[in-house]
Protein backbone atom coordinates (compact mmCIF):
# COMPACT_ATOMS: atom_id res chain seq x y z
CA UNK A 1 0.00 0.00 0.00
CA UNK A 2 2.81 2.38 0.87
CA UNK A 3 4.40 1.61 -2.42
CA UNK A 4 1.16 2.52 -4.16
CA UNK A 5 1.10 5.80 -2.26
CA UNK A 6 4.55 6.63 -3.52
CA UNK A 7 3.67 5.62 -7.07
CA UNK A 8 0.58 7.81 -6.97
CA UNK A 9 2.63 10.75 -5.73
CA UNK A 10 5.15 10.33 -8.55
CA UNK A 11 2.34 10.12 -11.12
CA UNK A 12 0.77 13.30 -9.76
CA UNK A 13 4.04 15.18 -9.83
CA UNK A 14 4.97 14.05 -13.28
CA UNK A 15 1.56 14.85 -14.69
CA UNK A 16 1.98 18.42 -13.51
CA UNK A 17 5.47 18.85 -14.85
CA UNK A 18 4.45 19.00 -18.50
CA UNK A 19 7.93 19.96 -19.57
CA UNK A 20 9.56 16.92 -18.09
CA UNK A 21 6.95 14.75 -19.70
CA UNK A 22 7.44 16.37 -23.07
CA UNK A 23 11.15 15.93 -22.72
CA UNK A 24 10.84 12.33 -21.70
CA UNK A 25 8.67 11.40 -24.67
CA UNK A 26 9.52 13.88 -27.40
CA UNK A 27 13.16 14.84 -26.98
CA UNK A 28 14.49 11.35 -27.81
CA UNK A 29 12.47 11.45 -31.05
CA UNK A 30 13.90 14.81 -32.00
CA UNK A 31 17.45 13.70 -31.34
CA UNK A 32 16.91 10.37 -33.06
CA UNK A 33 15.57 12.01 -36.19
CA UNK A 34 18.41 14.50 -36.15
CA UNK A 35 20.87 11.64 -36.04
CA UNK A 36 18.94 9.84 -38.74
CA UNK A 37 19.33 12.77 -41.09
CA UNK A 38 22.93 13.31 -40.19
CA UNK A 39 24.01 9.74 -40.74
CA UNK A 40 21.77 9.15 -43.70
CA UNK A 41 23.14 12.08 -45.61
CA UNK A 42 24.41 10.84 -48.95
CA UNK A 43 28.11 10.65 -49.07
CA UNK A 44 29.09 13.57 -51.21
CA UNK A 45 31.09 13.02 -54.37
CA UNK A 46 34.82 13.11 -53.96
CA UNK A 47 36.32 15.87 -56.03
CA UNK A 48 39.63 15.18 -57.74
CA UNK A 49 41.60 17.61 -59.81
CA UNK A 50 43.60 15.93 -62.56
CA UNK A 51 46.50 17.58 -64.36
CA UNK A 52 47.94 16.13 -67.59
CA UNK A 53 45.69 13.09 -67.57
CA UNK A 54 44.72 11.26 -70.75
CA UNK A 55 41.10 10.58 -71.54
CA UNK A 56 41.48 6.90 -70.77
CA UNK A 57 42.51 7.69 -67.22
CA UNK A 58 39.75 10.24 -66.79
CA UNK A 59 37.18 7.68 -67.84
CA UNK A 60 38.50 5.22 -65.35
CA UNK A 61 38.35 7.80 -62.57
CA UNK A 62 34.84 8.79 -63.46
CA UNK A 63 33.89 5.14 -63.48
CA UNK A 64 34.61 4.96 -59.74
CA UNK A 65 32.46 8.04 -59.11
CA UNK A 66 35.13 10.68 -58.80
CA UNK A 67 34.03 14.16 -59.66
CA UNK A 68 36.92 14.89 -61.98
CA UNK A 69 38.06 18.43 -62.67
CA UNK A 70 40.66 18.71 -65.40
CA UNK A 71 43.08 21.52 -64.80
CA UNK A 72 46.57 22.18 -66.00
CA UNK A 73 48.76 24.61 -64.05
CA UNK A 74 47.19 23.67 -60.75
CA UNK A 75 48.95 24.20 -57.44
CA UNK A 76 48.71 23.20 -53.82
CA UNK A 77 47.48 26.70 -52.98
CA UNK A 78 44.62 26.33 -55.48
CA UNK A 79 43.71 23.08 -53.80
CA UNK A 80 43.56 24.76 -50.40
CA UNK A 81 41.57 27.67 -51.72
CA UNK A 82 38.98 25.56 -53.55
CA UNK A 83 38.84 22.79 -50.97
CA UNK A 84 38.86 19.96 -53.48
CA UNK A 85 39.55 16.62 -51.89
CA UNK A 86 42.61 15.76 -53.91
CA UNK A 87 44.85 16.61 -56.85
CA UNK A 88 46.40 14.04 -59.16
CA UNK A 89 49.31 15.34 -61.17
CA UNK A 90 50.68 13.04 -63.84
CA UNK A 91 54.34 13.44 -64.64
CA UNK A 92 56.27 11.25 -67.15
CA UNK A 93 56.09 8.07 -65.20
CA UNK A 94 54.92 9.17 -61.85
CA UNK A 95 51.59 9.98 -60.22
CA UNK A 96 51.76 12.75 -57.71
CA UNK A 97 48.74 12.72 -55.46
CA UNK A 98 48.12 15.64 -53.15
CA UNK A 99 45.38 15.14 -50.59
CA UNK A 100 43.62 18.02 -48.84
CA UNK A 101 43.13 15.75 -45.80
CA UNK A 102 40.83 18.14 -43.95
CA UNK A 103 39.12 15.00 -42.81
CA UNK A 104 41.15 11.80 -42.65
CA UNK A 105 38.18 9.65 -43.67
CA UNK A 106 37.74 11.59 -46.93
CA UNK A 107 41.45 11.30 -47.66
CA UNK A 108 41.29 7.56 -47.09
CA UNK A 109 38.29 7.27 -49.39
CA UNK A 110 40.15 9.14 -52.16
CA UNK A 111 43.13 6.82 -51.85
CA UNK A 112 40.93 3.75 -51.86
CA UNK A 113 38.97 4.76 -54.93
CA UNK A 114 42.11 5.74 -56.73
CA UNK A 115 43.72 2.37 -56.22
CA UNK A 116 40.44 0.79 -57.32
CA UNK A 117 40.56 2.75 -60.57
CA UNK A 118 44.22 2.00 -61.20
CA UNK A 119 43.99 -1.61 -60.23
CA UNK A 120 44.93 -3.89 -63.14
CA UNK A 121 47.63 -2.10 -65.07
CA UNK A 122 49.09 1.31 -64.29
CA UNK A 123 49.65 0.92 -60.59
CA UNK A 124 52.41 -1.58 -61.11
CA UNK A 125 54.39 0.31 -63.70
CA UNK A 126 53.90 3.85 -62.46
CA UNK A 127 55.46 5.31 -59.36
CA UNK A 128 53.04 6.81 -56.93
CA UNK A 129 53.79 9.52 -54.41
CA UNK A 130 51.36 11.02 -51.96
CA UNK A 131 51.57 14.30 -50.10
CA UNK A 132 49.19 16.01 -47.73
CA UNK A 133 48.03 19.59 -47.42
CA UNK A 134 46.93 19.26 -43.81
CA UNK A 135 48.32 16.69 -41.42
CA UNK A 136 50.06 13.63 -42.80
CA UNK A 137 49.40 9.96 -43.43
CA UNK A 138 49.29 9.35 -39.69
CA UNK A 139 46.48 11.83 -39.12
CA UNK A 140 43.89 10.13 -36.98
CA UNK A 141 40.23 11.05 -36.85
CA UNK A 142 40.85 12.23 -33.31
CA UNK A 143 43.25 14.89 -34.51
CA UNK A 144 40.62 16.59 -36.59
CA UNK A 145 37.85 16.53 -34.09
CA UNK A 146 39.76 17.00 -30.87
CA UNK A 147 39.58 20.78 -31.32
CA UNK A 148 35.82 20.44 -31.34
CA UNK A 149 35.92 18.22 -28.29
CA UNK A 150 37.89 20.87 -26.43
CA UNK A 151 35.38 23.59 -27.16
CA UNK A 152 32.50 21.22 -26.54
CA UNK A 153 33.67 20.50 -23.01
CA UNK A 154 34.36 24.14 -22.32
CA UNK A 155 30.84 24.93 -23.48
CA UNK A 156 29.20 22.09 -21.60
CA UNK A 157 30.72 22.64 -18.17
CA UNK A 158 30.50 26.39 -18.20
CA UNK A 159 26.87 26.17 -19.30
CA UNK A 160 25.92 23.85 -16.46
CA UNK A 161 27.83 25.68 -13.75
CA UNK A 162 26.62 29.16 -14.62
CA UNK A 163 23.08 27.97 -15.26
CA UNK A 164 22.75 26.15 -11.98
CA UNK A 165 24.46 28.89 -9.98
CA UNK A 166 22.09 31.54 -11.26
CA UNK A 167 19.14 29.22 -10.88
CA UNK A 168 20.04 28.74 -7.21
CA UNK A 169 20.17 32.48 -6.86
CA UNK A 170 16.69 32.75 -8.36
CA UNK A 171 15.08 29.98 -6.31
CA UNK A 172 16.65 30.95 -2.99
CA UNK A 173 15.37 34.50 -3.34
CA UNK A 174 18.82 36.04 -3.15
CA UNK A 175 18.51 37.46 -6.65
CA UNK A 176 15.35 39.24 -5.63
CA UNK A 177 17.07 40.46 -2.48
CA UNK A 178 20.00 41.75 -4.54
CA UNK A 179 17.57 43.68 -6.70
CA UNK A 180 16.13 45.32 -3.58
CA UNK A 181 19.46 47.12 -3.27
CA UNK A 182 20.41 50.02 -5.56
CA UNK A 183 22.44 47.67 -7.78
CA UNK A 184 21.87 48.13 -11.51
CA UNK A 185 20.72 45.21 -13.59
CA UNK A 186 23.73 45.32 -15.85
CA UNK A 187 25.97 45.30 -12.77
CA UNK A 188 24.50 41.98 -11.71
CA UNK A 189 25.01 40.50 -15.16
CA UNK A 190 28.52 41.94 -15.42
CA UNK A 191 29.39 40.60 -11.97
CA UNK A 192 28.18 37.19 -12.98
CA UNK A 193 29.97 37.19 -16.31
CA UNK A 194 33.27 38.29 -14.80
CA UNK A 195 33.03 36.23 -11.63
CA UNK A 196 32.25 32.96 -13.33
CA UNK A 197 34.22 34.05 -16.39
CA UNK A 198 37.43 33.96 -14.35
CA UNK A 199 36.83 30.35 -13.45
CA UNK A 200 35.84 29.56 -17.02
CA UNK A 201 39.15 31.06 -18.21
CA UNK A 202 41.15 28.95 -15.79
CA UNK A 203 39.20 25.87 -16.88
CA UNK A 204 39.79 26.71 -20.53
CA UNK A 205 43.51 27.11 -20.00
CA UNK A 206 43.72 23.78 -18.18
CA UNK A 207 41.77 21.91 -20.86
CA UNK A 208 43.70 23.45 -23.75
CA UNK A 209 47.13 23.00 -22.19
CA UNK A 210 46.35 19.44 -21.16
CA UNK A 211 45.00 18.59 -24.60
CA UNK A 212 47.95 20.08 -26.44
CA UNK A 213 50.88 19.21 -24.21
CA UNK A 214 49.81 16.06 -22.43
CA UNK A 215 47.54 14.38 -24.97
CA UNK A 216 49.63 15.81 -27.77
CA UNK A 217 46.68 16.84 -29.92
CA UNK A 218 47.87 18.21 -33.24
CA UNK A 219 48.14 21.96 -33.23
CA UNK A 220 49.86 23.86 -35.95
CA UNK A 221 48.38 27.28 -35.24
CA UNK A 222 48.92 29.64 -32.34
CA UNK A 223 47.95 28.41 -28.90
CA UNK A 224 46.86 31.96 -28.07
CA UNK A 225 44.25 31.82 -30.79
CA UNK A 226 43.06 28.50 -29.39
CA UNK A 227 42.73 30.09 -25.96
CA UNK A 228 41.03 33.19 -27.34
CA UNK A 229 38.46 31.13 -29.25
CA UNK A 230 37.74 28.96 -26.24
CA UNK A 231 37.31 31.97 -24.00
CA UNK A 232 34.72 33.33 -26.39
CA UNK A 233 33.04 29.94 -26.30
CA UNK A 234 33.04 30.10 -22.50
CA UNK A 235 31.50 33.57 -22.60
CA UNK A 236 28.74 32.46 -24.97
CA UNK A 237 28.06 29.44 -22.83
CA UNK A 238 28.11 31.45 -19.60
CA UNK A 239 25.61 33.97 -20.89
CA UNK A 240 23.41 31.31 -22.47
CA UNK A 241 23.39 29.24 -19.29
CA UNK A 242 22.47 32.27 -17.21
CA UNK A 243 19.72 33.19 -19.65
CA UNK A 244 18.19 29.73 -19.86
CA UNK A 245 18.21 29.41 -16.08
CA UNK A 246 15.34 31.88 -16.05
CA UNK A 247 13.27 29.32 -17.95
CA UNK A 248 13.98 26.57 -15.43
CA UNK A 249 12.21 26.16 -12.13
CA UNK A 250 14.60 23.59 -10.70
CA UNK A 251 18.00 22.01 -11.21
CA UNK A 252 16.14 19.15 -12.77
CA UNK A 253 14.65 21.39 -15.41
CA UNK A 254 18.06 22.96 -15.98
CA UNK A 255 19.41 19.51 -16.79
CA UNK A 256 16.73 19.18 -19.43
CA UNK A 257 18.51 21.78 -21.49
CA UNK A 258 21.33 19.32 -22.06
CA UNK A 259 19.50 17.28 -24.72
CA UNK A 260 17.87 20.41 -26.11
CA UNK A 261 20.83 22.77 -26.25
CA UNK A 262 24.04 20.85 -25.77
CA UNK A 263 23.56 17.61 -27.70
CA UNK A 264 22.44 19.19 -31.00
CA UNK A 265 25.42 21.50 -30.83
CA UNK A 266 27.70 18.49 -30.67
CA UNK A 267 26.12 17.17 -33.88
CA UNK A 268 26.91 20.35 -35.71
CA UNK A 269 30.35 20.98 -34.35
CA UNK A 270 31.96 19.04 -37.15
CA UNK A 271 32.34 15.70 -35.44
CA UNK A 272 30.15 14.56 -38.32
CA UNK A 273 31.14 16.02 -41.66
CA UNK A 274 28.86 18.95 -42.40
CA UNK A 275 29.48 19.03 -46.14
CA UNK A 276 27.47 15.86 -46.60
CA UNK A 277 24.39 17.21 -44.89
CA UNK A 278 21.37 18.45 -46.77
CA UNK A 279 20.98 22.21 -46.93
CA UNK A 280 18.26 22.63 -44.34
CA UNK A 281 20.29 20.61 -41.88
CA UNK A 282 23.35 22.73 -42.56
CA UNK A 283 21.25 25.82 -41.96
CA UNK A 284 20.26 24.54 -38.54
CA UNK A 285 23.95 24.19 -37.81
CA UNK A 286 24.46 27.84 -38.63
CA UNK A 287 22.37 28.98 -35.67
CA UNK A 288 24.57 27.08 -33.23
CA UNK A 289 27.49 28.91 -31.62
CA UNK A 290 29.45 25.68 -31.55
CA UNK A 291 29.40 25.50 -35.35
CA UNK A 292 31.51 28.66 -35.56
CA UNK A 293 33.68 27.79 -32.59
CA UNK A 294 34.54 24.37 -33.97
CA UNK A 295 35.22 25.78 -37.40
CA UNK A 296 37.62 28.35 -35.97
CA UNK A 297 39.36 25.91 -33.66
CA UNK A 298 39.74 23.25 -36.30
CA UNK A 299 41.16 25.92 -38.58
CA UNK A 300 43.71 27.06 -36.04
CA UNK A 301 44.76 23.75 -34.56
CA UNK A 302 44.73 21.51 -37.61
CA UNK A 303 45.10 23.82 -40.58
CA UNK A 304 47.25 26.50 -39.00
CA UNK A 305 44.85 29.38 -39.69
CA UNK A 306 45.81 32.82 -38.46
CA UNK A 307 43.71 35.44 -36.72
CA UNK A 308 42.41 36.99 -39.93
CA UNK A 309 41.26 33.58 -41.19
CA UNK A 310 39.03 33.02 -38.18
CA UNK A 311 38.06 36.65 -37.48
CA UNK A 312 34.58 36.16 -38.93
CA UNK A 313 33.94 33.15 -36.73
CA UNK A 314 35.20 34.99 -33.66
CA UNK A 315 33.03 37.97 -34.54
CA UNK A 316 29.95 35.78 -34.77
CA UNK A 317 30.77 34.15 -31.41
CA UNK A 318 31.19 37.56 -29.82
CA UNK A 319 27.83 38.63 -31.25
CA UNK A 320 26.17 35.55 -29.76
CA UNK A 321 27.62 36.46 -26.36
CA UNK A 322 26.53 40.07 -26.72
CA UNK A 323 22.96 39.11 -27.61
CA UNK A 324 22.71 36.66 -24.72
CA UNK A 325 24.13 39.18 -22.25
CA UNK A 326 21.66 41.82 -23.38
CA UNK A 327 18.79 39.36 -23.05
CA UNK A 328 20.01 38.54 -19.54
CA UNK A 329 19.84 42.18 -18.55
CA UNK A 330 16.37 42.49 -20.02
CA UNK A 331 15.16 39.30 -18.37
CA UNK A 332 16.01 40.68 -14.93
CA UNK A 333 13.15 43.13 -15.44
CA UNK A 334 10.98 40.31 -14.23
CA UNK A 335 12.24 41.10 -10.73
CA UNK A 336 12.50 44.84 -10.90
CA UNK A 337 11.21 47.15 -13.56
CA UNK A 338 14.08 49.60 -13.04
Amino acid at each position, binding site marked *: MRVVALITRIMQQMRRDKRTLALLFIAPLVILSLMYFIFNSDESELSLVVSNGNSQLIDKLQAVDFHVIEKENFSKEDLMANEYDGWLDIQQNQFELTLLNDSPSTAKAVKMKLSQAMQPDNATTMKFSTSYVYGDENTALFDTFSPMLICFFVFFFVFLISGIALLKERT*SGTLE*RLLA*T*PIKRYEIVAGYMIGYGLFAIIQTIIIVVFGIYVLDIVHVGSIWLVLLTNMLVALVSLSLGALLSSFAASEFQMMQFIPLVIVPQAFFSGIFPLDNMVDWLQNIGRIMPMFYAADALNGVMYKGYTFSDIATNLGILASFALVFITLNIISLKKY*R*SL
Partner: protein
Amino acid sequence: MEDIAITLSAVEKRFKHKQVIAPLSLEVPTGQLIGLLGPSGCGKTTLIKMIMGMLKPDQGSIHVFNYTVPHKQLLMDIGYMAQSDALYTDLTGAENINLFAKLYGLSKTERINRVQYAANLVHLTGDLNEKVMNYSGGMKRRLSLAIALIQNPKLLILDEPTVGIDPVLKKEIWQELIRLKDQEHKTILVTTHAMDEAERCDQLAMLRGGQIIAQGTPQELKTCYGAKDFDEVFLKAGGDII
Protein backbone atom coordinates in the same frame (compact mmCIF):
# COMPACT_ATOMS: atom_id res chain seq x y z
CA MET B 1 3.88 65.97 2.20
CA GLU B 2 6.99 65.25 4.27
CA ASP B 3 4.89 63.78 7.05
CA ILE B 4 3.63 61.02 4.80
CA ALA B 5 6.22 58.36 4.03
CA ILE B 6 4.24 56.00 1.82
CA THR B 7 1.17 56.78 -0.22
CA LEU B 8 -0.73 54.09 -2.06
CA SER B 9 -3.48 55.39 -4.31
CA ALA B 10 -6.04 53.01 -5.74
CA VAL B 11 -3.50 50.28 -6.18
CA GLU B 12 -4.70 47.12 -7.84
CA LYS B 13 -2.97 43.86 -8.68
CA ARG B 14 -4.09 40.60 -10.17
CA PHE B 15 -2.14 37.44 -10.94
CA LYS B 16 -3.67 35.78 -13.96
CA HIS B 17 -7.35 35.99 -13.08
CA LYS B 18 -7.02 36.14 -9.34
CA GLN B 19 -7.47 39.57 -7.84
CA VAL B 20 -4.77 39.76 -5.17
CA ILE B 21 -5.05 43.41 -4.27
CA ALA B 22 -8.43 45.07 -4.72
CA PRO B 23 -8.24 48.82 -5.37
CA LEU B 24 -6.60 49.95 -2.17
CA SER B 25 -5.38 53.25 -0.76
CA LEU B 26 -3.20 53.72 2.26
CA GLU B 27 -1.05 56.40 3.79
CA VAL B 28 1.83 55.68 6.11
CA PRO B 29 2.88 58.68 8.22
CA THR B 30 6.58 59.36 8.72
CA GLY B 31 8.14 58.29 11.99
CA GLN B 32 5.52 55.73 12.89
CA LEU B 33 5.45 52.01 13.31
CA ILE B 34 2.74 50.65 11.09
CA GLY B 35 1.50 47.11 11.27
CA LEU B 36 0.03 45.41 8.26
CA LEU B 37 -2.09 42.74 9.79
CA GLY B 38 -3.74 39.87 8.09
CA PRO B 39 -3.93 36.13 7.59
CA SER B 40 -1.60 34.29 5.24
CA GLY B 41 -2.42 34.85 1.61
CA CYS B 42 -4.25 38.12 2.15
CA GLY B 43 -1.86 40.07 -0.06
CA LYS B 44 0.59 41.46 2.52
CA THR B 45 3.69 40.33 0.68
CA THR B 46 2.32 41.41 -2.69
CA LEU B 47 1.63 44.86 -1.28
CA ILE B 48 5.13 45.09 0.14
CA LYS B 49 6.75 43.98 -3.09
CA MET B 50 4.82 46.66 -4.93
CA ILE B 51 6.04 49.31 -2.47
CA MET B 52 9.59 48.04 -3.04
CA GLY B 53 9.09 48.33 -6.79
CA MET B 54 9.60 44.62 -7.36
CA LEU B 55 6.07 44.14 -8.63
CA LYS B 56 4.27 46.58 -10.84
CA PRO B 57 0.71 47.42 -9.82
CA ASP B 58 -1.85 46.98 -12.60
CA GLN B 59 -3.61 50.18 -11.60
CA GLY B 60 -2.92 53.06 -9.29
CA SER B 61 0.30 54.64 -8.13
CA ILE B 62 2.68 54.40 -5.22
CA HIS B 63 4.77 57.22 -3.79
CA VAL B 64 7.48 56.85 -1.19
CA PHE B 65 9.17 59.98 0.23
CA ASN B 66 7.82 62.00 -2.70
CA TYR B 67 9.39 59.68 -5.24
CA THR B 68 7.22 57.68 -7.58
CA VAL B 69 7.89 53.97 -7.27
CA PRO B 70 9.99 52.50 -8.81
CA HIS B 71 12.89 54.83 -8.15
CA LYS B 72 16.51 53.89 -7.61
CA GLN B 73 17.16 56.37 -4.79
CA LEU B 74 14.34 54.74 -2.84
CA LEU B 75 16.16 51.43 -2.72
CA MET B 76 18.87 53.25 -0.76
CA ASP B 77 16.29 54.60 1.69
CA ILE B 78 14.42 51.36 2.29
CA GLY B 79 15.72 48.55 4.44
CA TYR B 80 14.00 45.40 3.27
CA MET B 81 13.59 42.08 4.91
CA ALA B 82 11.91 39.46 2.77
CA GLN B 83 9.61 36.82 4.08
CA SER B 84 11.97 34.03 3.12
CA ASP B 85 15.56 34.33 4.22
CA ALA B 86 17.41 35.25 1.08
CA LEU B 87 20.88 34.45 2.30
CA TYR B 88 23.93 32.85 0.74
CA THR B 89 24.06 29.75 2.89
CA ASP B 90 27.57 28.73 1.92
CA LEU B 91 28.95 32.08 3.04
CA THR B 92 29.41 33.12 6.66
CA GLY B 93 27.16 35.63 8.36
CA ALA B 94 29.84 38.30 8.15
CA GLU B 95 30.36 37.67 4.43
CA ASN B 96 26.63 38.01 3.85
CA ILE B 97 26.33 41.30 5.73
CA ASN B 98 29.47 42.69 4.11
CA LEU B 99 28.20 41.84 0.64
CA PHE B 100 25.08 43.92 1.17
CA ALA B 101 27.02 46.70 2.89
CA LYS B 102 29.13 46.94 -0.25
CA LEU B 103 26.09 46.83 -2.53
CA TYR B 104 24.72 49.83 -0.65
CA GLY B 105 28.01 51.57 -1.31
CA LEU B 106 29.10 52.03 2.30
CA SER B 107 32.68 53.17 2.83
CA LYS B 108 35.05 50.87 4.64
CA THR B 109 34.85 52.55 8.04
CA GLU B 110 31.10 52.94 7.76
CA ARG B 111 30.90 49.31 6.86
CA ILE B 112 32.84 48.13 9.88
CA ASN B 113 30.70 50.26 12.18
CA ARG B 114 27.39 49.32 10.63
CA VAL B 115 28.20 45.60 10.51
CA GLN B 116 29.17 45.71 14.16
CA TYR B 117 26.07 47.67 15.08
CA ALA B 118 23.67 45.49 13.13
CA ALA B 119 25.22 42.20 14.29
CA ASN B 120 25.20 43.36 17.87
CA LEU B 121 21.59 44.41 17.63
CA VAL B 122 20.44 40.95 16.61
CA HIS B 123 22.89 39.18 18.94
CA LEU B 124 24.86 37.55 16.18
CA THR B 125 28.28 39.04 16.86
CA GLY B 126 29.62 35.75 18.18
CA ASP B 127 28.31 33.72 15.25
CA LEU B 128 29.34 35.94 12.40
CA ASN B 129 32.13 33.69 11.26
CA GLU B 130 29.91 30.66 11.13
CA LYS B 131 28.50 29.53 7.80
CA VAL B 132 24.85 30.45 7.39
CA MET B 133 23.91 26.86 6.54
CA ASN B 134 24.72 26.00 10.16
CA TYR B 135 22.42 28.73 11.50
CA SER B 136 19.10 27.95 13.13
CA GLY B 137 15.91 29.36 11.61
CA GLY B 138 15.85 32.16 14.16
CA MET B 139 19.48 33.07 13.52
CA LYS B 140 18.80 33.36 9.80
CA ARG B 141 15.86 35.65 10.51
CA ARG B 142 18.09 37.80 12.71
CA LEU B 143 20.77 37.97 10.06
CA SER B 144 18.17 39.07 7.52
CA LEU B 145 17.08 41.80 9.90
CA ALA B 146 20.67 42.92 10.40
CA ILE B 147 21.04 43.18 6.61
CA ALA B 148 17.86 45.25 6.39
CA LEU B 149 19.39 47.74 8.83
CA ILE B 150 22.83 47.82 7.28
CA GLN B 151 22.64 51.04 5.24
CA ASN B 152 20.82 52.92 8.01
CA PRO B 153 17.68 53.47 5.91
CA LYS B 154 14.94 55.98 6.71
CA LEU B 155 12.24 53.42 6.07
CA LEU B 156 12.19 49.80 7.18
CA ILE B 157 9.93 47.33 5.44
CA LEU B 158 9.92 44.05 7.28
CA ASP B 159 7.92 41.11 6.01
CA GLU B 160 7.12 38.96 9.05
CA PRO B 161 10.36 39.73 10.85
CA THR B 162 9.75 37.65 13.95
CA VAL B 163 8.61 34.35 12.49
CA GLY B 164 10.62 31.53 14.03
CA ILE B 165 12.25 33.73 16.65
CA ASP B 166 11.92 32.80 20.30
CA PRO B 167 9.86 35.04 22.62
CA VAL B 168 12.85 36.59 24.39
CA LEU B 169 14.51 37.68 21.20
CA LYS B 170 11.20 38.70 19.69
CA LYS B 171 10.68 41.05 22.61
CA GLU B 172 14.16 42.50 22.14
CA ILE B 173 13.65 43.01 18.46
CA TRP B 174 10.42 44.84 19.07
CA GLN B 175 12.09 47.00 21.69
CA GLU B 176 14.73 47.85 19.15
CA LEU B 177 12.16 48.62 16.46
CA ILE B 178 10.44 50.99 18.83
CA ARG B 179 13.77 52.55 19.78
CA LEU B 180 14.63 53.01 16.09
CA LYS B 181 11.32 54.73 15.59
CA ASP B 182 11.51 56.93 18.69
CA GLN B 183 15.15 57.90 18.69
CA GLU B 184 16.17 57.67 15.07
CA HIS B 185 12.79 58.71 13.66
CA LYS B 186 12.56 55.84 11.29
CA THR B 187 9.35 54.84 9.62
CA ILE B 188 8.70 51.15 9.99
CA LEU B 189 6.24 49.01 8.10
CA VAL B 190 5.86 45.53 9.54
CA THR B 191 3.65 42.70 8.38
CA THR B 192 2.55 40.18 10.91
CA HIS B 193 -0.18 37.77 11.72
CA ALA B 194 0.76 37.66 15.39
CA MET B 195 -1.84 39.57 17.33
CA ASP B 196 0.43 40.32 20.28
CA GLU B 197 2.71 42.24 17.94
CA ALA B 198 -0.20 44.23 16.60
CA GLU B 199 -0.65 45.84 20.03
CA ARG B 200 2.77 47.46 19.81
CA CYS B 201 2.20 49.26 16.51
CA ASP B 202 1.20 52.93 16.33
CA GLN B 203 -1.17 52.31 13.47
CA LEU B 204 -2.69 49.16 12.12
CA ALA B 205 -4.11 48.29 8.78
CA MET B 206 -6.00 45.07 8.57
CA LEU B 207 -5.82 43.36 5.25
CA ARG B 208 -8.09 40.62 4.05
CA GLY B 209 -8.69 39.38 0.54
CA GLY B 210 -6.61 42.24 -0.81
CA GLN B 211 -8.69 44.90 0.88
CA ILE B 212 -8.14 47.00 3.95
CA ILE B 213 -11.00 46.08 6.20
CA ALA B 214 -10.05 48.24 9.18
CA GLN B 215 -7.55 50.92 10.00
CA GLY B 216 -6.56 52.91 13.10
CA THR B 217 -4.60 52.74 16.33
CA PRO B 218 -4.77 49.45 18.21
CA GLN B 219 -6.94 51.12 20.87
CA GLU B 220 -9.33 52.58 18.29
CA LEU B 221 -9.78 49.25 16.62
CA LYS B 222 -10.47 47.49 19.89
CA THR B 223 -13.00 50.11 20.98
CA CYS B 224 -14.60 50.23 17.58
CA TYR B 225 -15.26 46.52 17.56
CA GLY B 226 -15.82 46.28 21.30
CA ALA B 227 -13.22 43.59 21.59
CA LYS B 228 -10.88 42.55 24.39
CA ASP B 229 -7.97 41.51 22.19
CA PHE B 230 -6.94 41.43 18.59
CA ASP B 231 -8.01 37.93 17.82
CA GLU B 232 -11.48 39.15 18.53
CA VAL B 233 -11.04 42.36 16.53
CA PHE B 234 -9.90 40.33 13.63
CA LEU B 235 -12.78 37.93 13.75
CA LYS B 236 -15.32 40.70 14.11
CA ALA B 237 -13.83 42.92 11.44
CA GLY B 238 -13.64 40.19 8.91
CA GLY B 239 -16.92 38.52 9.66
CA ASP B 240 -16.83 34.91 10.67
CA ILE B 241 -15.49 33.53 7.42
CA ILE B 242 -11.85 32.61 7.81
